[in-house]
Protein backbone atom coordinates (compact mmCIF):
# COMPACT_ATOMS: atom_id res chain seq x y z
CA UNK A 1 0.00 0.00 0.00
CA UNK A 2 1.27 3.48 -0.76
CA UNK A 3 2.30 5.89 1.96
CA UNK A 4 -0.28 8.50 2.91
CA UNK A 5 0.65 12.19 2.98
CA UNK A 6 -1.42 15.13 4.22
CA UNK A 7 -0.36 18.46 2.73
CA UNK A 8 -1.64 21.34 4.80
CA UNK A 9 -1.75 24.56 2.84
CA UNK A 10 -2.36 24.39 -0.89
CA UNK A 11 -0.78 27.53 -2.22
CA UNK A 12 1.87 27.23 -4.89
CA UNK A 13 4.17 24.96 -2.89
CA UNK A 14 1.43 22.67 -1.56
CA UNK A 15 -0.04 22.18 -5.02
CA UNK A 16 3.27 21.52 -6.75
CA UNK A 17 4.34 19.12 -4.02
CA UNK A 18 0.95 17.37 -4.15
CA UNK A 19 1.29 16.75 -7.89
CA UNK A 20 4.89 15.53 -7.60
CA UNK A 21 4.16 13.18 -4.70
CA UNK A 22 1.11 11.79 -6.47
CA UNK A 23 3.27 11.07 -9.52
CA UNK A 24 5.79 9.36 -7.24
CA UNK A 25 3.08 6.99 -5.98
CA UNK A 26 2.11 8.50 -2.63
CA UNK A 27 -1.50 8.76 -1.60
CA UNK A 28 -1.90 12.54 -1.22
CA UNK A 29 -4.60 14.56 0.57
CA UNK A 30 -4.61 18.35 0.42
CA UNK A 31 -6.07 20.64 3.08
CA UNK A 32 -6.56 24.37 2.89
CA UNK A 33 -8.54 27.03 4.70
CA UNK A 34 -8.90 28.83 1.35
CA UNK A 35 -10.87 27.90 -1.73
CA UNK A 36 -9.54 25.89 -4.66
CA UNK A 37 -9.21 28.99 -6.84
CA UNK A 38 -6.21 29.92 -4.69
CA UNK A 39 -7.27 33.53 -4.23
CA UNK A 40 -6.41 33.45 -0.55
CA UNK A 41 -2.84 32.39 -1.26
CA UNK A 42 -0.02 34.90 -1.65
CA UNK A 43 1.02 33.09 -4.87
CA UNK A 44 -2.17 34.45 -6.40
CA UNK A 45 -0.86 37.98 -5.77
CA UNK A 46 2.71 37.35 -6.97
CA UNK A 47 4.25 38.61 -10.20
CA UNK A 48 5.85 35.23 -10.97
CA UNK A 49 9.29 36.72 -11.51
CA UNK A 50 12.11 34.22 -11.96
CA UNK A 51 15.10 36.47 -11.37
CA UNK A 52 17.68 34.52 -9.38
CA UNK A 53 20.56 36.87 -10.21
CA UNK A 54 18.83 40.23 -9.95
CA UNK A 55 17.30 39.08 -6.68
CA UNK A 56 20.80 38.88 -5.21
CA UNK A 57 20.54 42.64 -4.86
CA UNK A 58 18.84 41.96 -1.55
CA UNK A 59 19.27 38.22 -0.98
CA UNK A 60 22.05 35.94 0.05
CA UNK A 61 23.92 33.83 -2.49
CA UNK A 62 22.03 30.64 -1.51
CA UNK A 63 18.71 32.10 -2.67
CA UNK A 64 20.31 32.78 -6.05
CA UNK A 65 21.55 29.21 -6.21
CA UNK A 66 18.12 27.78 -5.32
CA UNK A 67 16.67 30.05 -8.01
CA UNK A 68 19.18 28.94 -10.67
CA UNK A 69 18.43 25.29 -9.96
CA UNK A 70 14.69 25.99 -10.05
CA UNK A 71 14.97 27.84 -13.33
CA UNK A 72 16.40 24.70 -14.92
CA UNK A 73 13.56 22.62 -13.47
CA UNK A 74 10.64 24.87 -14.44
CA UNK A 75 10.39 23.81 -18.14
CA UNK A 76 10.45 20.12 -17.16
CA UNK A 77 7.78 20.62 -14.52
CA UNK A 78 5.50 22.65 -16.79
CA UNK A 79 5.93 20.22 -19.69
CA UNK A 80 4.30 17.44 -17.70
CA UNK A 81 1.19 19.47 -16.91
CA UNK A 82 -1.92 18.76 -19.00
CA UNK A 83 -2.40 22.41 -20.12
CA UNK A 84 0.05 25.08 -21.19
CA UNK A 85 1.19 27.73 -18.73
CA UNK A 86 2.82 30.95 -19.93
CA UNK A 87 6.53 30.70 -19.16
CA UNK A 88 9.32 32.87 -20.50
CA UNK A 89 13.08 32.82 -20.23
CA UNK A 90 14.33 35.74 -22.30
CA UNK A 91 16.14 37.53 -19.53
CA UNK A 92 15.20 40.60 -17.56
CA UNK A 93 16.32 44.22 -17.68
CA UNK A 94 17.11 46.79 -15.02
CA UNK A 95 17.01 50.48 -15.90
CA UNK A 96 17.23 53.80 -14.08
CA UNK A 97 16.73 57.37 -15.10
CA UNK A 98 19.79 59.56 -15.49
CA UNK A 99 19.43 61.15 -12.07
CA UNK A 100 19.28 57.75 -10.42
CA UNK A 101 22.18 56.14 -12.24
CA UNK A 102 23.96 55.65 -8.93
CA UNK A 103 21.32 53.06 -8.06
CA UNK A 104 22.39 50.96 -11.05
CA UNK A 105 25.97 50.74 -9.88
CA UNK A 106 24.85 50.05 -6.33
CA UNK A 107 22.72 47.11 -7.48
CA UNK A 108 25.44 45.92 -9.79
CA UNK A 109 28.04 46.00 -7.03
CA UNK A 110 25.92 43.96 -4.67
CA UNK A 111 24.94 41.41 -7.32
CA UNK A 112 28.46 40.98 -8.70
CA UNK A 113 29.75 40.45 -5.20
CA UNK A 114 27.52 37.38 -4.88
CA UNK A 115 28.01 35.59 -8.21
CA UNK A 116 30.89 33.64 -9.71
CA UNK A 117 29.53 33.37 -13.24
CA UNK A 118 30.07 36.74 -14.95
CA UNK A 119 27.80 35.79 -17.86
CA UNK A 120 24.74 36.12 -15.61
CA UNK A 121 24.87 39.91 -15.77
CA UNK A 122 25.71 42.27 -18.62
CA UNK A 123 26.01 46.04 -18.85
CA UNK A 124 24.09 47.32 -21.84
CA UNK A 125 24.22 50.69 -23.58
CA UNK A 126 21.13 52.65 -24.52
CA UNK A 127 21.45 51.29 -28.04
CA UNK A 128 21.66 47.66 -26.94
CA UNK A 129 18.71 48.29 -24.67
CA UNK A 130 16.77 49.47 -27.71
CA UNK A 131 17.73 46.29 -29.56
CA UNK A 132 16.39 44.15 -26.74
CA UNK A 133 13.29 46.27 -26.15
CA UNK A 134 12.56 48.59 -29.10
CA UNK A 135 9.96 50.44 -27.06
CA UNK A 136 12.64 51.54 -24.61
CA UNK A 137 14.99 52.91 -27.26
CA UNK A 138 16.27 56.41 -26.44
CA UNK A 139 14.54 56.35 -23.10
CA UNK A 140 17.54 55.21 -21.07
CA UNK A 141 21.24 55.69 -21.64
CA UNK A 142 22.26 52.44 -19.98
CA UNK A 143 20.97 49.43 -18.14
CA UNK A 144 21.70 45.94 -16.88
CA UNK A 145 20.68 42.78 -18.69
CA UNK A 146 20.27 39.48 -16.89
CA UNK A 147 20.12 36.97 -19.75
CA UNK A 148 19.14 33.92 -17.70
CA UNK A 149 15.99 35.13 -16.03
CA UNK A 150 12.33 34.88 -16.83
CA UNK A 151 8.83 34.66 -15.50
CA UNK A 152 5.91 32.30 -15.11
CA UNK A 153 2.23 33.22 -15.13
CA UNK A 154 1.34 32.75 -11.47
CA UNK A 155 -2.42 32.57 -11.83
CA UNK A 156 -2.30 30.42 -14.94
CA UNK A 157 -0.10 27.97 -13.08
CA UNK A 158 -2.32 27.87 -9.99
CA UNK A 159 -5.29 27.15 -12.21
CA UNK A 160 -3.61 24.38 -14.19
CA UNK A 161 -2.39 22.86 -10.92
CA UNK A 162 -5.96 22.88 -9.64
CA UNK A 163 -7.14 21.07 -12.78
CA UNK A 164 -4.29 18.59 -12.53
CA UNK A 165 -4.99 17.79 -8.88
CA UNK A 166 -8.70 17.34 -9.51
CA UNK A 167 -8.27 15.27 -12.65
CA UNK A 168 -5.78 12.98 -10.91
CA UNK A 169 -8.40 12.42 -8.25
CA UNK A 170 -6.44 13.62 -5.23
CA UNK A 171 -8.42 14.21 -2.07
CA UNK A 172 -8.68 17.98 -1.54
CA UNK A 173 -10.50 19.44 1.43
CA UNK A 174 -10.72 23.20 0.96
CA UNK A 175 -12.39 25.97 2.89
CA UNK A 176 -11.61 24.24 6.19
CA UNK A 177 -8.87 25.40 8.53
CA UNK A 178 -6.63 22.73 10.01
CA UNK A 179 -6.53 23.34 13.76
CA UNK A 180 -3.58 21.24 14.75
CA UNK A 181 -0.65 19.57 13.12
CA UNK A 182 1.52 16.92 14.73
CA UNK A 183 3.69 14.08 13.44
CA UNK A 184 1.40 11.74 11.54
CA UNK A 185 -1.79 13.49 12.57
CA UNK A 186 -3.89 16.54 11.79
CA UNK A 187 -7.14 17.76 13.27
CA UNK A 188 -9.71 19.96 11.59
CA UNK A 189 -13.30 20.80 12.38
CA UNK A 190 -13.33 18.49 15.41
CA UNK A 191 -12.07 15.56 13.35
CA UNK A 192 -8.68 13.83 13.68
CA UNK A 193 -6.97 11.96 10.87
CA UNK A 194 -3.79 9.94 10.75
CA UNK A 195 -1.28 9.88 7.90
CA UNK A 196 2.18 8.45 7.41
CA UNK A 197 3.42 11.97 6.75
CA UNK A 198 2.09 15.46 7.42
CA UNK A 199 3.64 18.26 5.36
CA UNK A 200 3.05 21.84 6.47
CA UNK A 201 3.07 24.08 3.39
CA UNK A 202 1.11 26.92 4.92
CA UNK A 203 2.04 30.55 4.51
CA UNK A 204 1.23 32.91 7.34
CA UNK A 205 -1.25 30.31 8.59
CA UNK A 206 1.71 28.47 10.11
CA UNK A 207 2.32 31.38 12.47
CA UNK A 208 0.44 29.64 15.26
CA UNK A 209 3.13 26.92 15.27
CA UNK A 210 6.10 29.05 14.21
CA UNK A 211 5.85 32.45 15.91
CA UNK A 212 8.96 33.72 14.13
CA UNK A 213 7.00 33.98 10.88
CA UNK A 214 5.82 37.45 10.00
CA UNK A 215 3.99 38.92 7.03
CA UNK A 216 5.52 41.47 4.66
CA UNK A 217 2.79 43.29 2.80
CA UNK A 218 3.07 43.53 -0.97
CA UNK A 219 0.84 45.50 -3.34
CA UNK A 220 0.51 45.04 -7.09
CA UNK A 221 -1.45 46.57 -9.91
CA UNK A 222 -2.49 44.74 -13.08
CA UNK A 223 -3.08 46.93 -16.07
CA UNK A 224 -4.04 46.46 -19.69
CA UNK A 225 -1.56 48.47 -21.75
CA UNK A 226 -2.04 48.01 -25.51
CA UNK A 227 0.27 50.93 -26.28
CA UNK A 228 3.21 49.38 -24.47
CA UNK A 229 5.06 46.50 -25.97
CA UNK A 230 7.82 45.30 -23.71
CA UNK A 231 8.71 41.64 -24.07
CA UNK A 232 10.51 40.83 -20.87
CA UNK A 233 10.35 41.93 -17.23
CA UNK A 234 11.85 45.37 -16.67
CA UNK A 235 12.87 46.62 -13.27
CA UNK A 236 13.08 50.35 -12.72
CA UNK A 237 15.33 51.65 -9.97
CA UNK A 238 14.75 54.75 -7.96
CA UNK A 239 16.43 55.75 -4.70
CA UNK A 240 13.28 54.95 -2.77
CA UNK A 241 11.77 52.01 -4.59
CA UNK A 242 12.42 49.31 -7.12
CA UNK A 243 9.51 48.25 -9.25
CA UNK A 244 9.00 45.51 -11.82
CA UNK A 245 6.95 45.77 -14.96
CA UNK A 246 6.11 42.21 -15.91
CA UNK A 247 4.51 41.82 -19.36
CA UNK A 248 1.95 39.04 -19.72
CA UNK A 249 0.07 37.79 -22.77
CA UNK A 250 -2.72 39.96 -24.20
CA UNK A 251 -1.22 43.33 -23.24
CA UNK A 252 -1.48 42.73 -19.53
CA UNK A 253 1.34 44.18 -17.46
CA UNK A 254 1.79 43.39 -13.79
CA UNK A 255 3.30 46.32 -11.89
CA UNK A 256 4.75 45.56 -8.49
CA UNK A 257 5.51 45.27 -5.83
CA UNK A 258 5.72 47.27 -2.68
CA UNK A 259 7.32 45.78 0.42
CA UNK A 260 5.92 47.00 3.71
CA UNK A 261 6.53 45.59 7.19
CA UNK A 262 2.92 44.87 7.95
CA UNK A 263 0.40 42.06 7.99
CA UNK A 264 -2.39 44.37 7.01
CA UNK A 265 -4.41 42.96 4.10
CA UNK A 266 -6.57 46.02 3.51
CA UNK A 267 -6.69 47.45 -0.04
CA UNK A 268 -3.74 49.23 -1.65
CA UNK A 269 -2.90 52.73 -0.37
CA UNK A 270 -2.95 55.85 -2.52
CA UNK A 271 0.75 56.35 -1.92
CA UNK A 272 1.63 52.87 -3.19
CA UNK A 273 -0.72 53.26 -6.14
CA UNK A 274 0.99 56.49 -7.10
CA UNK A 275 4.47 55.04 -6.71
CA UNK A 276 3.70 51.97 -8.80
CA UNK A 277 1.87 53.80 -11.54
CA UNK A 278 4.26 56.72 -11.83
CA UNK A 279 7.17 54.29 -12.03
CA UNK A 280 5.43 52.56 -14.92
CA UNK A 281 4.62 55.85 -16.63
CA UNK A 282 8.19 57.02 -16.21
CA UNK A 283 9.40 53.95 -18.10
CA UNK A 284 6.92 54.29 -20.94
CA UNK A 285 4.42 57.10 -21.63
CA UNK A 286 2.12 54.53 -23.24
CA UNK A 287 1.03 53.58 -19.73
CA UNK A 288 -0.92 56.85 -19.57
CA UNK A 289 -3.74 55.29 -21.55
CA UNK A 290 -3.51 51.88 -19.92
CA UNK A 291 -6.51 50.62 -17.99
CA UNK A 292 -6.23 49.55 -14.39
CA UNK A 293 -7.64 46.03 -14.24
CA UNK A 294 -7.05 45.26 -10.63
CA UNK A 295 -5.10 46.17 -7.51
CA UNK A 296 -4.04 43.29 -5.31
CA UNK A 297 -2.58 42.93 -1.83
CA UNK A 298 -0.91 39.97 -0.19
CA UNK A 299 1.44 39.16 2.67
CA UNK A 300 4.66 37.27 2.11
CA UNK A 301 5.30 34.71 4.83
CA UNK A 302 8.81 35.56 6.03
CA UNK A 303 11.43 34.45 8.51
CA UNK A 304 13.78 37.07 9.99
CA UNK A 305 16.57 36.08 7.57
CA UNK A 306 14.22 36.00 4.55
CA UNK A 307 15.25 32.43 3.80
CA UNK A 308 12.95 29.42 3.47
CA UNK A 309 13.05 26.69 6.10
CA UNK A 310 12.50 22.95 6.14
CA UNK A 311 11.84 21.50 9.59
CA UNK A 312 12.16 17.75 9.42
CA UNK A 313 11.15 15.09 11.93
CA UNK A 314 9.65 11.64 11.52
CA UNK A 315 6.06 12.01 10.36
CA UNK A 316 6.14 15.79 10.05
CA UNK A 317 7.90 18.03 7.59
CA UNK A 318 7.41 21.77 7.49
CA UNK A 319 8.22 23.96 4.49
CA UNK A 320 7.61 27.60 5.32
CA UNK A 321 8.73 31.18 4.87
CA UNK A 322 9.29 31.33 1.13
CA UNK A 323 8.99 35.13 1.47
CA UNK A 324 8.90 36.73 -1.96
CA UNK A 325 10.78 33.81 -3.46
CA UNK A 326 7.91 31.37 -3.93
CA UNK A 327 7.95 31.05 -7.72
CA UNK A 328 11.70 31.61 -7.78
CA UNK A 329 12.57 28.57 -5.70
CA UNK A 330 9.47 26.33 -5.54
CA UNK A 331 10.65 23.58 -7.97
CA UNK A 332 13.87 23.12 -6.04
CA UNK A 333 12.11 23.12 -2.66
CA UNK A 334 9.64 20.52 -3.99
CA UNK A 335 12.53 18.37 -5.18
CA UNK A 336 14.20 18.61 -1.77
CA UNK A 337 10.95 17.72 -0.04
CA UNK A 338 10.34 14.67 -2.26
CA UNK A 339 13.90 13.52 -1.67
CA UNK A 340 13.56 13.86 2.10
CA UNK A 341 10.36 11.80 2.17
CA UNK A 342 11.81 9.13 -0.09
CA UNK A 343 15.20 8.77 1.59
CA UNK A 344 13.97 9.29 5.13
CA UNK A 345 16.24 12.30 5.65
CA UNK A 346 16.93 15.67 4.02
CA UNK A 347 19.58 15.60 1.30
CA UNK A 348 23.08 16.97 1.66
CA UNK A 349 22.14 19.54 -0.98
CA UNK A 350 19.24 20.84 1.12
CA UNK A 351 21.60 21.17 4.07
CA UNK A 352 24.35 22.85 2.06
CA UNK A 353 22.04 25.57 0.81
CA UNK A 354 20.71 26.11 4.31
CA UNK A 355 17.15 24.92 3.72
CA UNK A 356 17.12 22.50 6.64
CA UNK A 357 16.63 24.29 9.90
Amino acid at each position, binding site marked *: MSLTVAIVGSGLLGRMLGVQLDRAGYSVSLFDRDQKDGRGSCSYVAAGMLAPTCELD*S*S*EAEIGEMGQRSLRQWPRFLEKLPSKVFFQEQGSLVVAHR*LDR*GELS*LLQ*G*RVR*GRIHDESLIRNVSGKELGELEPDLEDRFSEGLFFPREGQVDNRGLLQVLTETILSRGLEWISGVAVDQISPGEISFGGEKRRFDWVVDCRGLGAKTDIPE*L*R*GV*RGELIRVSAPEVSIRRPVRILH*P*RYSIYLVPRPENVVVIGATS*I*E*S*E*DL*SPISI*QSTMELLSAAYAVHPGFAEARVLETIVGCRP*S*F*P*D*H*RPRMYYQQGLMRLNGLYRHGFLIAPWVVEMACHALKQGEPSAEARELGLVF
Partner: protein
Amino acid sequence: MRVAVHRPFTIGEVELKSRLLLGTAQYPSPDVMVRAIEASRCEVITVSLRRQNAAGGGGEGFWDIIRGLGLHVLPNTAGCRTVQEAITVANMGRELFDTSWVKLELIGDDYTLQPDPIALIEATKVLAEDGFEVLPYMTEDLVVARRLVDAGCRVLMPWGAPIGSGQGILNPYALRTLRSRLPDMTLLVDAGLGRPSQAAEAMEMGFDGILLNSAVALAQDPVLMAKAFSRAIEAGRQGFEAGLIPSREMGVPSTPTLGTPFWQQQAAGKEEGS
Protein backbone atom coordinates in the same frame (compact mmCIF):
# COMPACT_ATOMS: atom_id res chain seq x y z
CA MET B 1 32.81 80.34 22.12
CA ARG B 2 34.39 77.01 22.84
CA VAL B 3 32.78 73.62 22.67
CA ALA B 4 33.30 71.71 25.88
CA VAL B 5 35.49 68.82 24.86
CA HIS B 6 35.06 66.20 27.54
CA ARG B 7 31.39 65.98 28.22
CA PRO B 8 28.95 63.11 28.27
CA PHE B 9 26.70 62.45 25.31
CA THR B 10 23.08 62.63 26.34
CA ILE B 11 19.69 62.56 24.71
CA GLY B 12 17.03 63.83 27.06
CA GLU B 13 18.06 62.47 30.44
CA VAL B 14 19.77 59.40 29.03
CA GLU B 15 23.53 59.26 28.95
CA LEU B 16 24.90 57.21 26.08
CA LYS B 17 28.25 55.58 25.45
CA SER B 18 27.88 55.06 21.73
CA ARG B 19 27.72 58.14 19.55
CA LEU B 20 26.15 56.28 16.66
CA LEU B 21 22.40 56.15 16.10
CA LEU B 22 21.35 53.60 13.50
CA GLY B 23 18.27 53.42 11.29
CA THR B 24 16.32 50.19 10.78
CA ALA B 25 15.12 50.54 7.18
CA GLN B 26 16.29 49.02 3.91
CA TYR B 27 18.31 46.08 5.22
CA PRO B 28 18.17 42.90 3.13
CA SER B 29 16.40 41.19 6.04
CA PRO B 30 15.59 41.80 9.71
CA ASP B 31 18.23 39.22 10.55
CA VAL B 32 20.97 41.22 8.81
CA MET B 33 19.62 44.36 10.48
CA VAL B 34 19.89 42.81 13.93
CA ARG B 35 23.45 41.65 13.28
CA ALA B 36 24.47 45.08 11.94
CA ILE B 37 22.98 46.81 14.97
CA GLU B 38 24.79 44.45 17.29
CA ALA B 39 28.07 44.90 15.45
CA SER B 40 27.75 48.68 15.65
CA ARG B 41 27.19 48.55 19.43
CA CYS B 42 24.82 51.48 19.05
CA GLU B 43 22.37 52.14 21.86
CA VAL B 44 19.74 54.07 19.93
CA ILE B 45 17.88 52.84 16.87
CA THR B 46 15.49 54.89 14.84
CA VAL B 47 12.32 53.37 13.45
CA SER B 48 10.08 54.66 10.70
CA LEU B 49 6.38 54.37 11.42
CA ARG B 50 4.87 56.11 8.46
CA ARG B 51 4.59 53.18 6.06
CA GLN B 52 4.18 50.37 8.52
CA ASN B 53 0.51 50.79 9.29
CA ALA B 54 1.37 51.28 12.92
CA ALA B 55 -2.17 52.34 13.69
CA GLY B 56 -3.62 49.01 12.65
CA GLY B 57 -1.01 47.06 14.60
CA GLY B 58 -0.20 45.31 11.33
CA GLY B 59 3.55 45.49 11.74
CA GLU B 60 3.73 43.56 15.01
CA GLY B 61 6.17 40.99 13.68
CA PHE B 62 8.71 43.67 12.87
CA TRP B 63 8.05 45.69 16.02
CA ASP B 64 8.70 42.58 18.11
CA ILE B 65 12.13 42.24 16.50
CA ILE B 66 12.86 45.92 17.24
CA ARG B 67 11.69 45.66 20.84
CA GLY B 68 13.62 42.44 21.28
CA LEU B 69 16.88 44.33 20.79
CA GLY B 70 16.35 46.08 24.13
CA LEU B 71 17.79 49.39 22.88
CA HIS B 72 16.46 52.93 23.07
CA VAL B 73 13.99 53.41 20.24
CA LEU B 74 13.77 56.74 18.48
CA PRO B 75 10.58 56.67 16.41
CA ASN B 76 10.77 58.90 13.35
CA THR B 77 8.21 60.64 11.21
CA ALA B 78 9.94 59.80 7.91
CA GLY B 79 7.78 60.53 4.91
CA CYS B 80 5.57 63.09 6.64
CA ARG B 81 4.86 66.28 4.75
CA THR B 82 2.51 68.21 6.97
CA VAL B 83 2.59 69.31 10.60
CA GLN B 84 -0.56 67.39 11.42
CA GLU B 85 0.72 64.20 9.83
CA ALA B 86 3.96 64.43 11.80
CA ILE B 87 2.11 65.00 15.07
CA THR B 88 -0.11 61.98 14.44
CA VAL B 89 2.87 59.75 13.67
CA ALA B 90 4.81 61.09 16.69
CA ASN B 91 1.92 60.10 18.92
CA MET B 92 1.79 56.66 17.34
CA GLY B 93 5.48 56.21 18.12
CA ARG B 94 4.99 57.26 21.72
CA GLU B 95 2.25 54.71 22.15
CA LEU B 96 3.98 51.91 20.30
CA PHE B 97 7.40 52.20 21.95
CA ASP B 98 6.52 53.90 25.19
CA THR B 99 8.96 56.76 24.64
CA SER B 100 8.73 60.52 24.49
CA TRP B 101 11.57 60.72 21.96
CA VAL B 102 10.79 61.53 18.37
CA LYS B 103 12.95 62.21 15.36
CA LEU B 104 10.94 64.88 13.63
CA GLU B 105 11.24 64.66 9.90
CA LEU B 106 9.10 66.89 7.71
CA ILE B 107 9.88 66.74 4.06
CA GLY B 108 9.59 69.93 2.04
CA ASP B 109 10.93 68.74 -1.29
CA ASP B 110 10.34 65.33 -2.77
CA TYR B 111 13.48 64.88 -4.76
CA THR B 112 16.11 66.17 -2.33
CA LEU B 113 14.01 65.20 0.69
CA GLN B 114 15.03 68.54 2.14
CA PRO B 115 13.32 69.24 5.45
CA ASP B 116 10.73 72.02 5.53
CA PRO B 117 12.13 74.45 8.14
CA ILE B 118 8.91 76.35 8.70
CA ALA B 119 6.73 73.31 9.28
CA LEU B 120 9.51 71.84 11.39
CA ILE B 121 9.49 74.76 13.83
CA GLU B 122 5.73 74.73 14.00
CA ALA B 123 5.50 70.99 14.70
CA THR B 124 8.34 71.20 17.22
CA LYS B 125 6.45 73.80 19.23
CA VAL B 126 3.35 71.60 19.43
CA LEU B 127 5.23 68.42 20.25
CA ALA B 128 7.58 69.99 22.83
CA GLU B 129 4.57 71.50 24.55
CA ASP B 130 3.08 68.02 24.64
CA GLY B 131 6.11 66.61 26.45
CA PHE B 132 8.04 65.15 23.51
CA GLU B 133 11.82 65.18 23.36
CA VAL B 134 12.01 66.44 19.80
CA LEU B 135 15.09 65.62 17.70
CA PRO B 136 14.53 67.62 14.53
CA TYR B 137 16.06 66.60 11.22
CA MET B 138 16.99 69.98 9.73
CA THR B 139 19.10 71.78 7.18
CA GLU B 140 22.32 73.40 8.41
CA ASP B 141 20.69 76.84 8.79
CA LEU B 142 21.80 78.65 11.96
CA VAL B 143 18.67 80.76 12.36
CA VAL B 144 16.38 77.74 12.00
CA ALA B 145 18.57 76.03 14.59
CA ARG B 146 18.06 78.91 17.02
CA ARG B 147 14.31 78.88 16.52
CA LEU B 148 14.26 75.15 17.20
CA VAL B 149 16.20 75.71 20.42
CA ASP B 150 13.68 78.39 21.39
CA ALA B 151 10.89 75.89 20.70
CA GLY B 152 12.39 73.48 23.22
CA CYS B 153 14.88 71.24 21.41
CA ARG B 154 17.88 69.97 23.33
CA VAL B 155 19.25 68.04 20.37
CA LEU B 156 19.52 69.23 16.77
CA MET B 157 20.20 67.06 13.76
CA PRO B 158 21.43 68.98 10.71
CA TRP B 159 21.90 67.04 7.50
CA GLY B 160 25.30 66.39 5.96
CA ALA B 161 23.71 65.96 2.54
CA PRO B 162 20.30 64.78 1.28
CA ILE B 163 19.03 61.52 2.85
CA GLY B 164 20.53 58.44 1.28
CA SER B 165 22.74 60.44 -1.09
CA GLY B 166 26.02 59.35 0.46
CA GLN B 167 27.63 62.65 -0.55
CA GLY B 168 29.16 63.41 2.82
CA ILE B 169 29.36 66.86 4.32
CA LEU B 170 28.41 69.28 1.56
CA ASN B 171 28.64 72.46 3.59
CA PRO B 172 31.40 72.15 6.18
CA TYR B 173 31.40 75.90 6.75
CA ALA B 174 27.76 75.96 7.86
CA LEU B 175 28.19 72.91 10.08
CA ARG B 176 31.25 74.45 11.73
CA THR B 177 29.28 77.64 12.27
CA LEU B 178 26.46 75.69 13.92
CA ARG B 179 28.93 73.94 16.15
CA SER B 180 30.70 77.08 17.26
CA ARG B 181 27.56 79.20 17.69
CA LEU B 182 25.67 76.53 19.62
CA PRO B 183 28.45 75.14 21.80
CA ASP B 184 26.16 73.71 24.48
CA MET B 185 23.65 71.97 22.23
CA THR B 186 23.86 68.29 21.43
CA LEU B 187 24.38 68.26 17.67
CA LEU B 188 24.17 65.16 15.50
CA VAL B 189 24.82 64.91 11.80
CA ASP B 190 21.84 63.09 10.36
CA ALA B 191 21.70 61.88 6.78
CA GLY B 192 23.82 62.04 3.69
CA LEU B 193 26.92 60.24 4.88
CA GLY B 194 28.20 57.43 2.70
CA ARG B 195 31.67 56.63 4.02
CA PRO B 196 33.11 55.99 7.46
CA SER B 197 35.69 58.73 6.79
CA GLN B 198 32.87 61.25 6.34
CA ALA B 199 31.48 60.31 9.73
CA ALA B 200 34.94 60.72 11.23
CA GLU B 201 35.17 64.16 9.60
CA ALA B 202 31.92 65.28 11.23
CA MET B 203 33.08 63.98 14.60
CA GLU B 204 36.41 65.79 14.26
CA MET B 205 34.41 68.99 13.80
CA GLY B 206 33.04 68.45 17.29
CA PHE B 207 29.65 67.01 16.51
CA ASP B 208 28.27 64.88 19.30
CA GLY B 209 27.10 61.97 17.23
CA ILE B 210 25.96 60.58 13.89
CA LEU B 211 22.68 59.16 12.69
CA LEU B 212 22.96 56.74 9.79
CA ASN B 213 20.90 54.31 7.81
CA SER B 214 21.43 53.84 4.06
CA ALA B 215 25.23 53.77 4.17
CA VAL B 216 25.04 50.70 6.40
CA ALA B 217 21.82 49.04 5.23
CA LEU B 218 22.67 49.20 1.52
CA ALA B 219 26.34 48.25 1.82
CA GLN B 220 27.42 44.94 0.34
CA ASP B 221 28.13 43.76 3.86
CA PRO B 222 25.96 45.80 6.23
CA VAL B 223 27.37 44.08 9.34
CA LEU B 224 30.96 44.94 8.49
CA MET B 225 29.98 48.46 7.45
CA ALA B 226 28.23 49.01 10.78
CA LYS B 227 31.43 48.09 12.54
CA ALA B 228 33.46 50.37 10.27
CA PHE B 229 31.24 53.38 10.97
CA SER B 230 31.22 52.69 14.67
CA ARG B 231 35.02 52.75 14.74
CA ALA B 232 35.28 55.82 12.50
CA ILE B 233 32.93 57.70 14.80
CA GLU B 234 34.98 56.73 17.82
CA ALA B 235 38.18 57.71 16.03
CA GLY B 236 36.75 61.06 14.95
CA ARG B 237 35.54 61.80 18.46
CA GLN B 238 38.86 60.88 20.00
CA GLY B 239 40.58 63.06 17.43
CA PHE B 240 38.38 65.97 18.43
CA GLU B 241 38.92 65.40 22.13
CA ALA B 242 42.66 65.02 21.67
CA GLY B 243 42.85 68.41 19.97
CA LEU B 244 43.67 68.56 16.28
CA ILE B 245 46.70 70.50 15.22
CA PRO B 246 45.96 73.40 12.93
CA SER B 247 46.79 72.98 9.27
CA ARG B 248 49.72 75.11 8.08
CA GLU B 249 50.84 76.45 4.77
CA MET B 250 54.37 75.12 5.04
CA GLY B 251 56.05 71.92 6.04
CA VAL B 252 57.27 71.62 9.60
CA PRO B 253 59.51 68.63 10.17
CA SER B 254 58.35 66.30 12.88
CA THR B 255 61.94 65.55 13.81
CA PRO B 256 63.79 68.73 14.71
CA THR B 257 66.78 69.15 12.39
CA LEU B 258 68.71 70.88 15.14
CA GLY B 259 71.28 68.49 16.47
CA THR B 260 71.08 66.09 13.53
CA PRO B 261 74.65 64.88 12.99
CA PHE B 262 76.11 66.51 9.89
CA TRP B 263 77.06 63.19 8.28
CA GLN B 264 73.36 62.19 8.10
CA GLN B 265 72.50 65.36 6.22
CA GLN B 266 75.42 64.72 3.95
CA ALA B 267 74.32 61.15 3.31
CA ALA B 268 70.80 62.32 2.53
CA GLY B 269 72.16 64.91 0.18
CA LYS B 270 74.31 62.34 -1.55
CA GLU B 271 71.44 59.94 -2.05
CA GLU B 272 69.31 62.62 -3.56
CA GLY B 273 72.13 63.63 -5.84
CA SER B 274 73.08 60.17 -7.01
